[in-house]
């Protein structure tokens, strides 16, 4: 088997046994990137030299007999909105194209402590705003299953890299589905943990009350491994929860017999591709076969989630992105005075979708409109949360499609923001409620992956992972790899 097709847990065993060194595997992945990157275009910045240094250091530590964790020496990459000290972090935006952070995000520190080897930074929709990666200011990333299609977004590069064997795992960020929707489009596992489970310190903010970092992996076991490494309380993030982090991997093998799964009917809405619905229904049948109790249920305020999300997220974004003004870092386009400098910098620095959302959010917060828009959106958010609270009184997990469609063609929705927004219909309510959710492969439609979304109770990633693992053990969708047309 090719090294790049291995999962983290498989590779970890080989490294531990000394059957392969970290330098060897890192070299193999660098070669793999060389071979496929011109078509996939997942990476914004590659740090091959640094990766080899880190790999060498891990090999030496291993040779000395130091005790190393499962991620030690395993090459990975990060979505380019996660700050890395000394390595440029661009958010795929012209405004930060040359910005080099002076500090590491908390998750980066966690992964460094775990001995990770970092291959580089991955493409995304600019400032995580988008569902196709076409909003990257640099170039679009392509879906490894079909180069003419989008990988999804905004963590498109992070997902495509894992699907194409250009990294064993990656970290993405999910504000309205940005990990799960692309994971579904590219046939990998992607989890958005509970809001507050993973520190946001060093994640360049899009919408602070919705953003959450999460793992993107080839299977559920890897997801549990990576999640364990990045989760936990962080004194630098006041919104991070001071709760113990369970041993997710240990918990995976638990039986799911008797698990109560709710199927919210609102998530099987019009506009859903029949093949997607069929695959998801089959997955639910599989759960019943495994002893779970599946029942249709209702989350009545689902239809309001999308409009409310586009008020909350854009309002926060309008304020979060105000700092990109050309004054002390990032792009500066001079002007005759400070106001003109602001305008020139932001006009040239931001792409159209980012500008659209800044304008929407500024409007929503404006005096005279605040109550009608932002405040009402917060009320809707409370109702959505209550829907889930009610459902979780009866169910352990909810199951839905991740996206109503499979990956669409590049350019297909680029001119129609509304159609693009609808692509996150099934993922957005989960961010509004701050819940954990995972997307895992559950079928194919004309050779393109379909994703199943499982939604959990707050801070109960364990049950989610157990359910996902049980499904995975009894299917082989996660073992499918795209044919990239290279040797």
């Amino acid at each position, binding site marked *: 088997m090719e090294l790049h097709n291995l999962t983290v847990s498989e590779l970890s065993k080989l490294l531990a046994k000394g059957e392969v060194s970290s330098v060897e595997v890192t070299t193999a992945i660098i070669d793999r990137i060389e071979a496929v990157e011109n078509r996939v275009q997942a990476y914004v910045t590659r740090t091959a030299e640094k990766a080899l240094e880190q790999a060498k250091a891990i090999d030496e530590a291993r040779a000395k007999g130091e005790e190393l964790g499962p991620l030690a020496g395993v090459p990975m990459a990060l979505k380019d*909105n*996660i*700050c890395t000290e000394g390595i440029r*972090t661009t*958010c795929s935006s012209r405004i*930060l194209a040359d*910005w080099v*952070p*002076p*500090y590491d*995000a908390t998750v980066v520190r966690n992964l460094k402590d775990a001995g990770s080897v970092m291959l580089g930074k991955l493409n995304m929709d600019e400032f995580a705003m988008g569902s196709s990666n076409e909003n990257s200011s640099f170039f679009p990333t392509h879906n490894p299953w079909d180069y003419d299609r989008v990988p999804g977004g905004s963590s498109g590069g992070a997902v495509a890299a894992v699907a194409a064997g250009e990294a064993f795992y990656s970290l993405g960020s999910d504000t309205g589905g940005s990990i799960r929707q692309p994971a579904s489009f590219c046939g990998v596992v992607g989890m958005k943990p509970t809001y507050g489970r993973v520190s*946001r*310190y*060093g*994640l*360049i*903010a899009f*919408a*602070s*009350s919705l953003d959450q970092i999460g793992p993107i992996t080839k299977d559920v076991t890897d997801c549990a491994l990576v999640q364990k490494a990045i989760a936990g309380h962080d*004194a*630098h*993030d*006041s*919104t991070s929860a001071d709760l113990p982090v369970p041993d997710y991997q240990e918990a995976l093998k638990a039986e799911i017999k008797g698990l109560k799964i709710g199927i919210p009917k609102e998530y099987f809405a019009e506009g859903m591709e029949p093949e997607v619905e069929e695959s998801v229904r089959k997955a639910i049948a599989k759960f019943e076969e495994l002893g779970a109790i599946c029942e249709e249920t209702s989350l009545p305020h689902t239809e309001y989630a999308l409009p409310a999300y586009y008020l909350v997220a854009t*309002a*926060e974004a*309008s*304020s979060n992105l*105000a*700092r990109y*003004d050309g*004054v*002390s*870092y990032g792009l500066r386009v001079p002007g005759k005075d*400070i106001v003109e400098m*602001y305008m020139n910098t932001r006009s040239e620095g931001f792409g159209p979708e980012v500008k659209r959302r800044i304008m929407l959010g*500024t409007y929503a*917060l*404006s*005096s005279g409109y*605040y109550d009608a828009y*932002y405040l009402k959106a917060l009320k809707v958010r409370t109702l959505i949360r209550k829907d889930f609270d009610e459902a979780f009184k009866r169910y352990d997990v909810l199951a839905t499609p991740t996206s109503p469609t499979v990956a669409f063609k590049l350019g297909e929705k680029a001119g129609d923001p509304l159609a693009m927004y609808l692509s996150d219909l099934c993922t957005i309510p989960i961010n509004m409620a701050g819940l954990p959710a995972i997307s895992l492969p559950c079928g194919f439609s004309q050779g393109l992956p379909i994703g199943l979304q499982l939604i959990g109770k707050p801070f109960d990633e364990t049950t989610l992972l157990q359910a996902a693992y049980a499904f995975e053990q009894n299917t082989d969708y996660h073992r499918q790899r795209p044919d990239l047309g290279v040797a």
Partner: protein
Amino acid sequence: MDYEAVIGLEVHVELKTNSKAFCACTTSFGAEPNTHVCPVCLGMPGVLPVINRQVIEFGIMTGLALNCQIAPFCKYDRKNYYYPDLPKNFQTSQYDLPLANNGYLKINVDGEEKRIGITRVHMEEDAGKLVHVDGPGGGYSLVDYNRAGVPLLEIVSEPDMRLPSEARAYMEKLRSILLYLGVSDCKMEEGSLRCDANVSVRPRGSKTLGTKTEVKNMNSFRALQRALEYEIERQISVLEDGGKIQQATMSWDESRGITTVMRTKEEAHDYRYFPEPDLVPIEVDNEWIERVRKSLPELPDERSQRLINTYGLPQYDAQVITSSRDLAEYFDQVVAKFPDAKVVSNWIMGDFSRLLNANNLEPQNSPVPPEQLADLLQLQKEGTISGKIAKQVLEEMFKTGKKARQVVEEKGLVQISDADALGKIVNEVISANPKVVEDYRNGKDKALGFLVGQVMKATKGKANPGLVNKLLKEQL
């Protein structure tokens, strides 16, 4: 027509916490530009704020000292506006749920006490400082972010003041309370205490408020009073001329002594406040409030009352002395060694304060420590030196930092109380001034004073005035 002014003040005070409001950087003043900074207070991408508990603690202290209700639940909000000294282009502040509200403080103007309402006290952060550098094409600006993120309290008063002197008294009292609490340095010239005023005028007796202007850039108590006097006159003359007051933000120009328009209502910012999503709300329980209440130091009003009760000081003296915590501490320490409180208060309010001001010193760094002032007063009381000499000695002590007895000895200032020695001089003065002696004998009492003066002159002021009087009368 007779007009009255309506004045409300918005005061910003920098807190002297160990670290900034949302990061671990120090708040100390006067460092090289951009050395007290980190990614958080520079507003770099990806950073998050963390609440400094000491800021809340100082806020509660201030709220309690101003007789406010402390909110059991409050939160931070973002105030959005673009300015190059504001790293994030929003200020983390409090909008609809401030930490404390509904309090008051008492002022005393011309012997009359007045209660000024405090609308609210809320927490926020300071911005950086812009420095303009002249050069070709208008030059350029530099930003120093050392101050960015230093915690501030904003203290908003009710529009309860009617005179510029009341506004000044309010500011002085507020400063005094904050200094007693030890929450701020309150240096107006360094910007750690700043004040904006909302001013309107209306016909006396009217209940409705006139259109107000906001006056900024008043950097001293004197500037505050002058600016308000000017702005009130300006508004009255606009109305007298049949004009209307335009709602605007005015800037006080200290050198020209006028206010000028900074922004009109049309140019006013829409701050687009919304709850700060990166911080969790703050809950202050009763236990916390009571713990802070118990730890509060004695405040100016209480202390003043204590001086009146304990030492029988006149109210005026007590208020002047307690207006500064340091001065009051100094007073207590002098009185501990020299228990005649009224004499001490006269000296402290008089020569001591004059010398402090002249040398731009605070009581705690005065070159004359309290026990030395007590010694000096003791020397005077014992008759070792006269009152006049005591003043000279104090000046010398200020100049050189020497002890009272040392100055007296070195300069030979010991009072001449030796009747033989003085007798000689008295006789000399009598023989040198036959005409005056004649006048005295003819019943001109004033003539004696002249003769005393001559003796003092001859002894360079060292003669014991009582003894000189006695000897002169005997001889005459």
